[in-house]
């Protein structure tokens, strides 16, 4: 599950001047023809760096994203939900595995990526810094956060880097099941007992502000964004993704008799665009920089898992083996 926002900040484009102009032109021509770039192909350093950063953040979002829903596996009500919740969260961890492999093809090892996650050097999707207070929160995540992730990932699956694009196709297929599962769970709550309806509405109220920031702030068009779009690294603007999400899911939320907690939310019939209360981007920045309700807890869990599992990884390590990056 990954929404994309805030991936491409703080990049220096000067690096491009050191690239061989002929190779760069050929590289861009290949992308323009719709060809995929493969791990052993020539690529500008900047392309490599941005992709590592993007795929790595995506992978981290999958394992950290497993935590808020994961806490509800042991409490899921009834066999049907218990088994589905387990399978769903397991899928997310499986996505992380796929994505770390895709990022490794670009030259950064999984161990290094996980170390950078724990150090706070690399980020993950900001929504997972919010807590899942109740079973209903977990349902909202399964439905609407996964829905948001699909919007973003369907766009990125058309990107230029072969291993990432293929991983995303597989991931999207699984996410489609999550969406059905999440929707089914929310439908049961929204059409259930008064207590269940109250729980699901409260969860929606809690999750709506983070959902609105899921795709990141409005993109400011710059040479920077233009280059990334030309290279098919960034496939859709944050605002485009957000509009598409609102278009697809607000009617479905209303259909269930739930209220979206934003009095300004409506579709402007003339422009065809959704209007809404501007999300609190100051809070977004604060949370992304570590000051959210669960940042410390999420990283602490990950750190503990890494520390407690270190002896297993040491035992598996064959001192004679040499690290070879996978091909895809």
């Amino acid at each position: 599950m990954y929404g994309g926002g805030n991936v491409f900040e703080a990049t220096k484009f000067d690096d491009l001047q050191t690239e061989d102009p002929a190779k760069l032109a050929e590289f861009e021509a290949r992308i323009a023809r719709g060809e995929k770039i493969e791990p052993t192909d020539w690529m500008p350093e900047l392309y490599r760096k941005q992709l590592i950063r993007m795929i790595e953040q995506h992978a981290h979002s999958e394992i950290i994203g497993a935590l808020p829903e994961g806490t509800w596996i042991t409490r899921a009500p009834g066999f049907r939900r218990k088994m589905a919740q387990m399978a769903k969260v397991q899928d997310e961890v499986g996505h992380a595995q796929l994505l770390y492999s895709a990022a490794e093809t670009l030259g950064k090892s999984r161990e290094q990526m996980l170390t950078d996650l724990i150090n706070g050097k690399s980020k993950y999707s900001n929504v997972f810094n919010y807590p899942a207070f109740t079973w209903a929160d977990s349902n909202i995540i399964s439905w609407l956060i996964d829905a948001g992730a699909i919007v973003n990932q369907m766009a990125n699956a058309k990107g230029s880097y072969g291993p990432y694009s293929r991983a995303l196709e597989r991931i999207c297929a699984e996410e489609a099941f999550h969406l059905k599962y999440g929707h089914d769970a929310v439908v049961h709550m929204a059409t259930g007992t008064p207590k269940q309806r109250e729980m699901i509405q409260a969860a929606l109220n809690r999750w709506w502000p983070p959902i609105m920031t899921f795709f990141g702030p409005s993109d400011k068009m710059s040479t920077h964004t233009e280059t990334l779009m030309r290279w098919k690294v960034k496939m859709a603007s944050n605002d485009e993704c957000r509009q598409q999400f609102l278009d697809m899911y607000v009617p479905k939320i209303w259909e269930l008799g739930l209220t979206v907690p934003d009095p300004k939310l409506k579709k402007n019939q003339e422009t065809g665009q959704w209007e809404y209360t501007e999300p609190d981007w100051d809070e977004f920045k604060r949370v992304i920089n570590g000051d959210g309700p669960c940042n410390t807890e999420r990283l602490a869990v990950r750190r503990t898992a890494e520390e407690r599992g270190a002896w297993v990884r040491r035992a598996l390590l064959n001192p004679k083996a040499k690290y070879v990056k996978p091909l895809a």
Partner: protein
Amino acid sequence: MNEQAIKDLLYKLADDQLILGHRNSEWTGFGPILEEDIAFSSMAQDKIGHSLAFYTLLQELGEADPDTVAFTRNANQFHNSQLVELPNGEYDFSLIRHFMYDNAEIIRFEMLSQSSYEPIAKVATKLKGEVKYHVLHANTWIKNLGSSTEEAILRLQSALNEALPYALGMFEKSKYEQELIDAGVYAGEEAVKAEWLKRIQVVLEKTDLKLPDLTSINPKFGGRYGEHTEYLQPLLDEMAEVFKIDPTAEW
């Protein structure tokens, strides 16, 4: 065939798998490597699915529906062995428990697939193929880690020593033991245990791990009769936390 004897056997089978499945699922998000995270989660899903199959047989014999049976009983109504309810601890303990439990489980399933009681035979035949993979997973990891670093060997050996009395508790006889054997339902706990010892020895011999002398060990019995450690009731409370908000609601 005495229906009580069959029910007792079914509860024992179902409860073991539900509780171990629940414990395995706690590894989701916390594994020492992602692949193990995923593996424990897979086995958890299988175990809980298997428990559901046995609870469904119980329902056919007139017991309450699987959700009610699994989510509303108290610890003293559970028939699982104490081995499966112990907390996961570190990966060493979880792996050793998995190794000991699944090597016994596969023998039970093999025997039950030949059972004179047809509903159990059908289910066991269908599910034993999945348990085979659980055993393969456990044995592979025990062989790998059990002959790797000194640290890993020490950890696994101490987990093995700690788990063994509980593992032997799996073979606690039911009060219907002789009846089940006589009716050809399965060969009974002594037979399962004898075969189990053979099989785990074969694996352990390929490692630097040693099975302690069994004569000096007191098995932790009681689980099959509703006597449990302090860890089971909190597990059940957690499992039923949402379900009990409204047991009549459709979740």
